[in-house]
């Protein structure tokens, strides 16, 4: 009896070591040789229809399979030619004419035309489509009216095909960032015959994006899609700029567990990770030739104040709370120095814009303000609840701030942990006193952050409403004739916002990735944007270890 168990164990160990011998070279070594990038992509994409999907993982894959009229240069974030060879903006800034590249092709060989865009934007804006990103096209004349069902005739919307290769767009107001939006999936063209083969244009449920059906126009084409396992794309041979594409393919992995993702990177299964576990950051920082990449990101982490509910209806209480937070200490301890302390809603340096610094960390002033509001040294404090969604890092930050407020102002703040959808519901219904929030800019422009706090804005959620603020953003900024003038208007608006303090800025996000040293052409940038067309792998890279 005993003997046979021992025998079995021995066989098991022997077969294990045999398996170990056959495991061979890693993905990364193989990938460098064959030009295949192994890309950790966060989660399984919802889908691949550009007018349906909303997330960042989706945008990576859709961005490989499709291309917009203009694309972002990953180094400068300036727009460069995509499907459009060039574009002209009229003197009043209201008409944009795109000249399509005659060499641009769909992956089935069909030429790309201006009519493709008219049809696709009608689809993207159709109310029946339920496209959550339709607002990206709202700066086009009458687009919003069409998308909200107030206008039925798409011919009245400011998009026209002048001929096969000329697309004319008329805007409501001058929109300097409009060209940037051409790199967003909701403005991409989709292949009409393919979509209509499987149903009506606005049907979200058809299988047109499956491997065997999909037709795109990007630098890559879809060759394999296994749910929750991997998505594989291969270099397209119909793409107009295929000479410049250096990768032969990309494998996207759904890596929603960031610890697992980090382990996959460590054993050479991935070239690139979506994120880095917080507690691993010091380890990677300390490494020589570290694969750790950390760069400012166009996003702000902040708390919302519900200005309709006491005690936060008093601006002095809001200011006191904001001034009592030591953002430097928070960043250096809890966040391992991985982020940038924030004192404004707009991240600093968005295409040259520097936000105003309206307040500082100032405990004395905070105590004074709180006393003026009627709570000297916390006396008579009615209590305050902070809602946040379940996450270890949100919790750590909340606990740190809770302690800072206790120490500096002698007030108690209770923490309410809520499951994600419950939390979204609370924020949406303004059923909170104070709530955690994060915002990622859709485009590199202060407007992407400042327009959140327009009166009654769908994402305002603070009760803040200032006619002067609305006037500045909606009337004055679009009329500005130079970037300097425009930014001065934004600074005035942001000063107004931060004096009223409907939000408590905490930090500016950074992007955190692990990236294999053999990967070239994936620089860090403010949008954390990847353009796979620029990516190359070093064939001669050898593991140093």
């Amino acid at each position, binding site marked *: 009896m005993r003997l046979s168990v021992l025998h079995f164990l021995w066989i098991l160990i022997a077969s294990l070591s045999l398996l*170990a011998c056959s495991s061979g070279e890693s993905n990364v070594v193989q990938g460098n040789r064959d030009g295949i990038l192994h890309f950790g992509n966060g989660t399984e994409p919802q889908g691949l229809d550009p007018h349906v999907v909303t997330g960042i993982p989706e945008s990576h894959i859709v961005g490989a399979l499709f291309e917009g009229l203009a694309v972002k240069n990953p180094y400068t974030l300036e727009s460069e030619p995509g499907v459009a060879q060039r574009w002209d903006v009229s003197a009043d800034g209201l008409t944009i004419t795109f000249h399509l590249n005659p060499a641009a092709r769909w992956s089935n060989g069909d030429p790309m035309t201006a009519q493709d865009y008219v049809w696709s934007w009608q689809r993207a804006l159709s109310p029946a489509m339920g496209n959550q990103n339709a607002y990206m096209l709202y700066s086009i004349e009458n687009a919003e009216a069409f998308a909200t069902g107030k206008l039925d005739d798409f011919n009245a919307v400011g998009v026209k095909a002048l001929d096969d290769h000329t697309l004319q767009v008329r805007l409501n107001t001058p929109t300097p960032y409009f060209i940037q939006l051409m790199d967003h999936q909701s403005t991409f063209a989709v292949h009409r015959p393919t979509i209509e083969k499987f149903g009506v244009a606005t049907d979200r*449920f058809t299988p047109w994006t499956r491997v065997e059906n999909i037709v795109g126009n990007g630098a890559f084409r879809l060759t394999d899609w*296994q749910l929750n*396992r991997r998505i594989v794309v291969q270099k397209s041979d119909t793409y107009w700029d295929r000479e410049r594409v250096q990768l032969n393919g990309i494998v996207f992995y759904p890596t929603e567990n960031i610890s697992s993702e980090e382990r996959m990177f460590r054993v050479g299964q991935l070239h690139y990770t979506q994120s880095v576990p917080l507690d691993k950051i010091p380890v990677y920082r300390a490494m020589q030739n570290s694969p750790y990449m950390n760069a400012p990101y166009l996003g702000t982490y902040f708390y919302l104040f519900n200005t309709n509910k006491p005690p936060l209806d008093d601006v002095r209480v809001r200011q006191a709370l904001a001034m009592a937070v030591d953002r430097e200490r928070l960043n250096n301890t809890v966040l391992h120095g991985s982020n940038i302390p924030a004192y404004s809603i707009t991240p600093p340096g968005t295409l040259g814009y520097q936000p105003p610094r309206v307040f500082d960390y100032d405990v004395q002033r905070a105590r004074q303000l709180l006393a003026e509001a009627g709570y000297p040294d916390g006396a008579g404090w009615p209590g305050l609840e902070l809602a946040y969604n379940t996450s270890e890092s949100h919790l750590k930050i909340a606990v740190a701030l809770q302690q800072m407020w206790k120490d500096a102002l002698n007030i108690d703040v209770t923490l309410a942990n809520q499951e994600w*959808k419950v939390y979204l*519901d609370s924020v949406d219904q303004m059923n909170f006193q104070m709530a955690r929030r994060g915002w990622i800019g859709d485009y590199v422009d202060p407007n992407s952050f400042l327009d959140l706090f327009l009166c009654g804005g*769908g994402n305002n959620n603070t009760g803040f409403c200032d006619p002067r603020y609305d006037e500045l953003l909606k009337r004055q900024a679009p009329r500005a004739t130079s970037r300097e003038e425009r930014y001065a208007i934004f600074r005035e608006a942001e000063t107004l916002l931060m004096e009223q303090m409907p939000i408590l800025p905490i930090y500016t996000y950074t992007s955190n990735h692990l990236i294999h040293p053999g990967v070239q052409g994936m620089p860090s940038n403010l949008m954390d944007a990847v353009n796979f067309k620029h990516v190359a792998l070093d064939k001669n890279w050898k593991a140093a270890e």
Partner: protein
Amino acid sequence: MWHFVGYRVLQAIPVLLVVITVTFFLVRIAPGGPFDSEKAVIPEVQAALEAQYRLNLTLWQQYTAYLGDLSRGDLGPSFKYPGRSVNELIAAGFPVTAELGFYALLVALFIGGAAGIIASLRPNTAQDYVPMSAAMIGICMPSFLLGPMLILVFGIYLDWLPVSGWGDSPGDKILPSITLGSAYAAYIARLSRAGMLEVLSQDYIRTARAKGLPEWQVVLKHALRGGLLPVVAFLGPAFAGLLSGSFVVETIFQIPGLGRFYVQAAFNRDYTMILGSTVFLATLIVLFNLLSDILAAWMNPRLRAQYGER
């Protein structure tokens, strides 16, 4: 025997109906909806999305429509993955989860059964204490700890086995199966030890020994069948538990199984996916309980006798 089986099958129908109804209404009570996101959705878009998923009907209409679809085997479209049906998602994830569960069960049976039998042969000696303490540790050690530890040792330091995946590279099925199986191995060790101890003190074992049979024959031929009865009764629920409880292991090892879809569906308020996987798993659990009851009846003559068969 047939009487017994038929009775159990009939019992299953109301159980499943209750499961469907309770789940259907429970997920609707949860705050938040499938289309809530960090960015506000304009009312027109929200309305269009709701209409596409029949959410604009009354709850009762939705319920009857769902039962109608279900009777045709249609579990509806997924909310989170537009363009995929729940049937398709289950069909993609279930075979992986079932395979993982099966291997895990083998691991559990082999390690647990061996430990339990060895322990029962010399109760209250070191040969008993050592395997049973190991079993206790197995119960206490959660898979989110054991999994990463195994990965660290065998995947990263020794570099013997892949750290993730399922069927992508040779040997990547070993660590997940051990991780998932070990908790159940501990239960099986305790059950088989108890069962064996009871059987080994029975008269017919003494008779077998008195006949002069060698000890290994007594254990393997006579004691084992009766001694493992409690284990067999546990197998059905264990396999069902392995199927519905593999979420953590699937996440740690990046395995494309049903568990990940199931748990994410709850977070996403993917109503049809929650319902579909719950109904599917509930059906399986009922089925496995039935199978293990039948198996137990076959192994236990006394139980068989109860239903008028010899």
